């Protein structure tokens, strides 16, 4: 229930298996309040699986996930959300037939009371959706605006940690640039952000630290500059010269 910020997300030794395949193998990472942590890796590295494990969509075979003092790994998905973890989706998952305003209100549904139109507009503005028409059907918005509405819906929960799954996908350069400011402002407000993203300029611009996954394992961690120079990372993305 509590949307109180100031709690750290700690993932410790989390493994997820789909049948015999290890999608995640003893992955550990932390997202401190106000920090922006990038999660990168080639396709199929397990980035979305990690987000799904943290949010309770898939249950880890082993490992611990905690937000502040609360253990999350055994909680159902909706309870994890109520503990203060909000997310957006790689493939947009808005409530398409509902209005923009209803989508934002749905984001705050686990909090006491009801959002006013002014509060809904303020949340949309934080996601760089200015002068939004609250009555418009969410499914009829242009793609980039749907992505921003998803962020506003997630912010409505006042999460301690926000998980962004490829928020820049399908955005034009101007929109991506605007997204930098959005993410920085969210973190400045005390919310921890875990950013899964392929756009490396966005990752370098906003992330305090970066975790690199490959085949379900963490192969590097460090600042954006450090991981960009790391030979293991270069190999994971580009292959070795002999290959």
């Amino acid at each position, binding site marked *: 229930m509590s949307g109180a910020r100031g709690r750290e997300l700690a993932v410790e030794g989390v493994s997820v298996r789909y049948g015999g395949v290890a999608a995640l193998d003893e992955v550990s990472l932390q997202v401190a309040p106000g920090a922006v942590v990038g999660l990168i890796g080639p396709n199929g590295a397990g980035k979305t699986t990690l987000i799904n494990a943290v*949010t309770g*969509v898939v249950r880890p075979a082993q490992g611990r996930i905690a937000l502040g003092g609360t253990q999350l790994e055994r909680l*159902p*998905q*909706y*309870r994890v*959300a*109520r503990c203060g973890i*909000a*997310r957006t*989706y790689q493939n947009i*998952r*808005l*409530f*398409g*037939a*509902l*209005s923009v305003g*209803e989508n934002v*209100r*749905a*984001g705050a*549904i*686990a909090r006491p009371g*009801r959002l006013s139109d002014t509060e809904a507009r303020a949340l949309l503005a934080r996601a760089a959706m200015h002068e939004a*028409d609250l*009555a*418009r*059907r969410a499914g*009829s918005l242009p793609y980039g605006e749907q992505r921003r509405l998803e962020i506003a*819906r997630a912010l409505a*929960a006042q999460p301690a940690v926000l998980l962004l799954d490829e928020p820049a996908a399908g955005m034009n350069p101007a929109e991506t640039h605007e997204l930098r400011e959005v993410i920085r402002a969210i973190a400045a407000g005390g919310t921890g952000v875990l950013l899964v993203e392929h756009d490396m300029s966005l990752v370098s611009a906003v992330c305090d630290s970066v975790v690199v996954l490959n085949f379900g394992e963490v192969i590097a961690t460090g600042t954006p500059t450090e991981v960009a120079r790391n030979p293991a990372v270069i190999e994971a993305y580009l292959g070795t010269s002999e290959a």
Partner: protein
Amino acid sequence: MLAFFAQHSKLVDQIGINALLALSLSLSLRAGQLALAQAAFMGIAAYVSAIGAVNAGWNLVECALAGALAAGAVALLLALPIGRLRGVFLAIATIGFGEIARIVEVNASITGGAEGFSNIPNDANTLWIYGTLALTGTALFFFNRSKFALAAAATREDENAARGVGIDVARVRMLTLAGGAVVAGLAGALYAHANFFITPGDFGFPRMEQILVYCVIGGVTSSLGAVAGAALMTILPEVVRFLQDYREVTSGAILLGIILFAPDGIAALWKRRS
């Protein structure tokens, strides 16, 4: 128009009862569940209220409350085994439940079996029926503005995203099913007390299909649409009586026309959004 209704007071009562049934189905459709057990819930309540009136001497209010609560309780129990079913699988399982209820009614001795149950006091007049409809409509008016209605709508749109914002989807589905069952139960009790005589066949699949047609024609998630659909499809067979054996064709034609040209039902005609 008034003269028409004066001649057809029985029809007016039927419209009220059918409107309640349509509202009850629209409740579970609101959370995106195609649960086709409304006729069974109606039947359970009809028998509870009929037996209560004849064997225990309950008055109409006691009968209606007992019937509605019984239907709601059965729905809560039914929600457990069907909780994981979606779409057509849910539809088929709930139709199966309806058949079980009907067969129990046919074979049990307390229900009077296939011959039906008679001597039910004929005390549910137009005032009672429309009073119940008004009460249900008012309750739905406030429901539609509640956070729970938003949770149901979000569940209908995308269950996973609904869980992602903290909605207990299983609970939402269970409560909308039970809420719908209570309304169907009220309709069933009124039906029993407006007809003197009920048989298991009154609550079989054809009834369920009619209720679904009211909702499809009205617009599956709109309360007003459900009522309008029920009214239209109850009056229509009387208006086209001159077509004799072919009059059922008009219902089918209207259903087809709605699905093809106004898939959101007649509710969408007065509620066009961007």
